[in-house]
């Protein structure tokens, strides 16, 4: 073909554009972890014992639940949804794991079974969202209420039974000097990150979240990634529930309540858009760890709860201001120059 190639003549206005999504996300991730570390170091002023490896270990253990939940929450948010049912799903996971422990069969049957049940409920959320066009917010809130009261009725208020040994081992055990949960967190984060950022599935999640119509036209069967996201979210919550059971060796109803807002917060502080299509799990992990660290440091402050809470809120806002997109972008451009 002989027609000229004008596009070759068009200079791209500036090659800094090449530093696309990837770098800005790495920067914000780095920034978050930096904040967390600064907090830990700063906490030395609160108490000399803080800032020790021991504290880091504690933080990781306490953050592990949040990290697992936040992964699922992050996926749902990525596809443009929101999962308010996770609190109940955590409880469900814990309750089933304890009440069925022993009676249901060996653990290698029990645990997958519980995860499967949770995943199915998550899938139901997706059905409502996709085909009944129910806003994710209301759908997951409703299913959350339903599951919660079902659990309440099923246990008539008192969950019985003890944690599966596998989770006792996970939460209490240790490999040499390193606690098992730390290893687990590392592995989980790697796998989860890979799933979201390096697989075809992950790519479709981003596409669907960024522009569902376009994804559909491009030939993506949009319902699959969406349903998968909700199912994974529910399963993650269930798993976290079992971890909590392993940690405290017993389940209670409402054991998940304290994880709903933090799960959303860690995703959003991690720079993901609440509207979907943008975000990286690495940053979410950063968010989760930042929040947990904040908790430990705050609770070590010698002042009354009111002021502590005020400071906690203030620090969250501060972190958000520091991690603002345009600031990150400016950093990026500078680094690109």
């Amino acid at each position, binding site marked *: *073909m*002989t*027609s*000229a*190639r*004008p*596009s*070759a*003549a*068009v*200079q*791209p*206005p*500036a090659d*800094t*554009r*090449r530093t*696309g*999504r990837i770098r800005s996300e790495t920067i914000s991730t780095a920034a978050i972890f930096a904040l967390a570390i600064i907090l830990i170091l700063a906490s030395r002023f609160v108490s000399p014992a803080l800032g020790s490896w021991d504290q880091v270990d504690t933080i990781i253990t306490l953050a592990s639940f949040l990290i697992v939940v936040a992964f699922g929450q992050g996926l749902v948010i990525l596809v443009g949804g929101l999962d308010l049912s996770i609190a109940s799903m955590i409880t469900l996971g814990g309750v089933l794991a304890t009440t069925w422990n022993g009676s249901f069969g060996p653990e290698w049957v029990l645990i997958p079974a519980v995860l499967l049940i949770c995943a199915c409920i998550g899938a139901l959320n997706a059905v409502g969202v996709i085909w009944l066009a129910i806003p994710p917010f209301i759908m997951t809130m409703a299913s959350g209420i339903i599951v919660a009261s079902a659990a309440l009725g099923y246990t008539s208020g008192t969950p019985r039974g003890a944690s599966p040994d596998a989770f006792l081992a996970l939460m209490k055990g240790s490999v040499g000097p390193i606690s098992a949960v730390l290893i687990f967190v590392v592995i989980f984060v790697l796998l989860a990150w*890979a799933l979201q950022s*390096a*697989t*075809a*599935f*992950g*790519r*479709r999640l*981003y*596409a669907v979240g*960024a*522009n569902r*119509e*376009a*994804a*559909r*036209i*491009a*030939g*993506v*069967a949009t319902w699959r990634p969406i349903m998968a996201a909700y199912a994974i979210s529910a399963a993650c919550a269930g798993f976290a529930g079992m971890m909590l059971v392993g940690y405290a060796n017993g389940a209670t109803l409402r054991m998940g309540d304290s994880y709903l807002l933090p799960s959303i917060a860690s995703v959003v502080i991690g720079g993901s858009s609440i509207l979907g*299509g*943008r975000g990286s799990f690495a940053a979410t992990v950063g968010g989760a760890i930042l929040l947990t660290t904040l908790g430990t440091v705050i609770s070590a402050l010698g002042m009354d709860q009111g002021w502590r809470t005020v400071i906690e809120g203030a620090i969250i806002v501060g972190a958000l201001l520091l991690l603002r997109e345009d600031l990150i*972008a*400016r950093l990026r*451009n500078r680094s*690109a*120059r």
Partner: protein
Amino acid sequence: MSGAVSALDVRSVSKSYGATVALQDVSIELQPGEVHALLGENGAGKSTLVKILSGVVKPDVGAMRMGGEPYGPHSIVDARRRGVATAFQELSLVPNLTVAQNLSLPRQPKGSLGLVSGAATQKHGAAVLERFGLRLSPNAMVAGLTLAERQRLEITRAFACDPRVLILDEPTAALAETDWLFRLVRQATAAGAAVLYISHRLHEVRELCQRATVLRNGRSIGTVGLEDATDHTIFEMMVGRSQAEEMQHRTAAAQSTRPAVLQAQGLAGDSFKNISFTLREGEILGVAGLEGQGQRALFRALVGLAPLASGSVKVDGALVRLSGPDVALKTGRGIAFLPEERKTEGIFPALATASNIVLPVIGRVGRAGFVSERLEREAAAESSSQVDLNSRYLDFRIGDLSGGNQQKALLARAMQTGAKILLLYDPTRGVDVGTKQSIYAAIRSFAESGGSVLLYSSELPELVHLADRCLVVYGGRIFAEMPGGDINERTLVAALTGHSMQETAA
């Protein structure tokens, strides 16, 4: 242009975003009563200049004067008050408000106790619509309007505030017939207004404008009087090098011998009925029609995006049910669709161009579900070369690319799918001359390599140059079908407007 004080005078304006230089030392000058064209390829900086003139963004340096007064609008409203109104390319209408409300934004007429009066708003809206000959209901939600209707409304809104300087950015992108617009423009200029007219359609520009200023890569190359500038020179200014535009007719081979790949039989749907045609292997079947003749619904129905009320579709001779684009891709030799609206239906702005291109086949690049960056880039590079998309763009966010390159990428995506049947809906909307050439070439070579194309275009010359046969749709029906030889603008235009059946039938 003699000493008359210029309506708008822009002197060496520059603007850069972060590290990206959008405009550098751009100057342009408009006389009262003239229609001044602003030419340049996508990404040449036209949109930025428009934003600066209409007060959306402030220039970093540079001076602007209006009728001699210094001009530095700090907001759109301010610009409007000073007499500069703009019809934006990305239409600036609010979907969940009525036509009337949109016409009176941001300040709606007030009734008693300073409250917005719905009646007054409607009355004002109706008056404006009446005045500019727009037959819309003032109470209709903008969301419910067709693209063309919205475009008209956008234009009307700009005209409605009787500006001294009127900026029209790609006003005909969604309009097939331009008389209405041109009449308005001429009225305005007759009344002494200056119009800055931005379009990729040179014949329109020649018809309407006296002078043209050309931008390239954010710099103003120069201003020429149009009567004494050949297309050749203008293209040269735009793309920086002689632009041989050769378009020969495809030798209308004995297509009828080739196997039929897509057969539509009596299709009826949302806004079309009784549509039957046959698309053969290696054939480019053109579809011509004014906007809103049902072609959009037809295309969408053929990939399962819109419901089919009745009729049957055969692919490779087999009866098929197309329930969605994903199914269409897997049906027979595969059907891929290039949608109408690049931004809302096409790109994923935050993803890299490469990722955008390979998305439909993302499962195939890499193993065990894991995407291999290398394979992805290779695949993307391969198909982007087919559409003459420079491979350096592959790593950019597609959102940062110029419209033309985005369009190329989307075409590359359609080809990437491996589908041998392409449904292209106005593939060159709002893209520059050079890009058009590349797209034409890509479509041709695709057909030559045995692919089949169903091509709708709002620009008749395209169909004339590309199509082997051409269907003319009117009022949701196939109004005429003309073999390659008979396709020329005259017969097409006649058919388009639904006239002279016998002539085309003959």
